[in-house]
């Protein structure tokens, strides 16, 4: 019988253990006597503290509050901003500063960070330790406890699955025009400042220095050779906008390039509750300076499609400059042989989108000339899944390319495994309880 279960009418049997117990240590008086004889190992003492059920309850309460606040925060911020700020924070930044507005359920409009609160991964990590510690000090395998153990193993798998997903999940898209190749995956939720030097001897090659947007978010940040020796010039951030629109206007804030005739107007971040779920279009004003101290001008860069790639010449070498969505090259190449966009006759209702791909991966000796990707029939390759997502059009509005959604999640199976294990554990646990209950009734 489980000690935590309340079963009226059933006489107390000998004490049995559950996966997590409070009060008297498991094992009964014999263990107590034994522990009196032998001083406890310090590690064991630490584990006992960590395994306290009061910690578990506190962590669950904290998690409830964090999920609630995280949900409210999506009124003003994008889903991924909230996920990264509240939940998937590295343990080097274990505290979330929750704005007053969120603390007071969005009833006031004060975005000042007010309440320090443990982040999602900190709570989850301590919860995992608490669970493991409880098992480590109280574990005693017996068939009548198999259900409880399986339930906890399932929960551990679920928690590790979240960590793996948070660390290794990749989501992006590939855009390929008919007759063209691509190996680039674009990540529209992340941006980077790219400095591209086209190779003089090989038209197919370019040398790219990519600076993640996190370096650009603080005004007056200086990015120079001390941070990255290959930088061809110094970059000083003047102003970064997490989301901005562009307006045609004479702009005194920029002295070179596109920004002379365009202004960036800051917009709020796309909200997590926005029904359209568009992507933010960041913009940044920067001051560029040569390593010798020569003023190279103030520039405006934006991921907005209206902002073209800009050029600068340093010591006779031309560089393309752009703030763009993060691009990561794969080792394989996809060539789009053909794209079909069929509609039901007489309507504009989509019937089928079909990409005919030639996949080549010289490193792994793969050459698949007839890969088809269409709705509900993705391609699985190299740990990634490629779904038919959208298409591009030419100036006459005719389909001329495909957009594939690229997803990599090494932890995708873990929630399924976890649910299965927990389900089996629950069946065994309650099955055994029911069996014992019926057995005792028969005996009586």
């Amino acid at each position: 019988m489980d000690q935590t279960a309340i079963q009226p009418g059933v006489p107390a049997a000998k004490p049995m253990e559950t996966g997590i117990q409070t009060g008297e240590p498991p094992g009964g008086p014999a263990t107590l006597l034994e522990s009196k004889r032998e001083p406890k190992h310090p590690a064991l003492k630490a584990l006992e503290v960590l395994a306290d059920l009061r910690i578990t309850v506190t962590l669950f309460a904290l998690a409830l509050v964090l999920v609630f606040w995280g949900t409210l925060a999506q009124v003003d911020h994008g889903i991924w901003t909230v996920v990264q700020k509240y939940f998937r924070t590295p343990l080097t930044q274990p505290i979330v500063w929750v704005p007053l507005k969120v603390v007071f359920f969005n009833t006031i409009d004060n975005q000042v960070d007010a309440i320090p609160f443990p982040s999602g991964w900190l709570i989850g990590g301590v919860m995992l330790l608490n669970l493991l510690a409880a098992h480590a000090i109280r574990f005693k395998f017996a068939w009548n406890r198999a259900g409880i153990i399986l339930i906890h193993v399932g929960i551990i798998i679920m928690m590790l699955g979240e960590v793996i997903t948070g660390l290794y999940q990749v989501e992006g898209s590939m855009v390929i025009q008919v007759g063209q190749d691509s190996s680039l995956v674009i990540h529209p939720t992340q941006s980077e400042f790219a400095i591209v030097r086209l190779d003089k001897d090989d038209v197919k090659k370019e040398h790219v220095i990519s600076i993640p947007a996190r370096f650009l978010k603080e005004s007056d940040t200086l990015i120079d050779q001390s941070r990255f020796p290959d930088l061809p010039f110094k970059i000083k951030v003047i102003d970064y906008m997490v989301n901005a629109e562009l307006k045609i206007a004479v702009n005194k804030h920029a002295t070179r390039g596109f920004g002379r005739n365009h202004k960036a107007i800051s917009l709020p971040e796309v909200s997590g509750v926005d029904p359209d779920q568009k992507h933010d279009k960041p913009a940044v004003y920067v001051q560029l300076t040569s390593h010798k101290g020569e003023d190279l001008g103030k520039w405006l860069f934006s991921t907005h499609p209206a902002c073209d790639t800009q050029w600068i010449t340093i010591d006779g070498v031309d560089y393309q400059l752009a703030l763009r969505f993060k691009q990561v090259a794969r080792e394989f190449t996809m060539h789009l042989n053909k794209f079909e966009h069929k509609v039901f006759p007489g309507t504009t209702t989509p019937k089928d989108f079909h990409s005919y791909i030639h996949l080549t991966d010289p490193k792994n000796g793969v050459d698949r000339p007839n890969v088809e990707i269409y709705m509900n029939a993705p391609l699985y390759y190299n740990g990634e899944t490629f779904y038919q997502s959208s298409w591009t059009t030419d100036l006459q509005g005719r389909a001329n390319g495909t957009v594939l959604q690229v997803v990599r999640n090494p932890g995708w199976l873990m929630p399924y495994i976890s649910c299965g294990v927990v389900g089996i554990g629950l069946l065994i646990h309650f099955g055994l309880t029911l069996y014992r209950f019926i057995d005792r009734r028969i005996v009586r």
Partner: protein
Amino acid sequence: MRFFPAYLVLFAASLALLVGCKAEDEIEKNEVTHPDREAIRLRVAIMKRGDDVWFFKISGPEALIEENKDVFENLVKSARFDDKKVPPLSVTDPKDWKKDPAGPPRGERFAGYRNDAKPRELEITITKFPIEKYDLLVNMNRWQRQVSLPISEDRDALEPFLRREKLEGQEVTWVNLLGRGVYTVTRPPEPMAKNKGKFLPPIGIKGKGGGGGGDIPFKYTAPEGWTKQPPNQIEVDIYHVKEGNKFAKIALSSAGGSLGENLKRWRTQVGLPPLPAGQDEAAADVRMVAGIKSFYVDFANPRGPEGKNRILGVVIPMGQQFWFIKMTGPLELVGQHKNAFETFFQSFKRN
């Protein structure tokens, strides 16, 4: 002591995993290879004549352009202008090249030719553009971008790419750019494209497609509460939104002219004084509508014509033509429905 070493191992592993996790992106340098990139040459011949500028253009892999150099130059040299004719230009079609069907009326394209060398056929296009909007630097910058060349910031920097000569009394400016890119050929216009826009749907007959008329190049979704009205000969799709006895009209139409002229007309309609030349465009917000860089304005004048003193308008440039999405009505009512109007034009997609 009931203490399971295996659990300790798991315990330590999970600690290590959590402590060391979440590496952040760093500044990186990579060499990226684009297998389908090649050297691309772009050649253009520019002729100014009357109110228009004419462009003869060919671009493609460097070797192919060199092979067909004479074809292109002979086509340019065959150009003859007769200002009494419409169109004033006539050319001698290149031998063994196929002529494209005519494009949509009011479009930029005058003629297109392509040789039969699939899949790497070459294409020559002849287009015209109003001289009042012509700017050599702007055009050169566009072509430089097409072949990944550094953008010239002033006219003097263009000279190395230009050559001028007179052919039969007509001044021709030759442009010659060598860059890199992925070579693609545009598809020719549909055979019946020249009839596009000639026949508007009759009054009271709904056009086909989601919210759009038969010749509307967009599909879109009208917000709830807007009632569809019969189109007329100018406005191909109309909606009304009512509040008591007041109403605002939302209309979709197309016309030529320049951006500045159209915006000026709207300012006049709400009784606002015209802005100095060039300032109308500056007053507009840039928005992407149906993937096209468009211009959004909000003209309001409390002392303007009653019931029509505010205009929200979007101008979508498509070739020489503009498409307009316009909401006209009383100041407050238009203000109340501004969000709906923005949602409306953001729903536009190309057919």
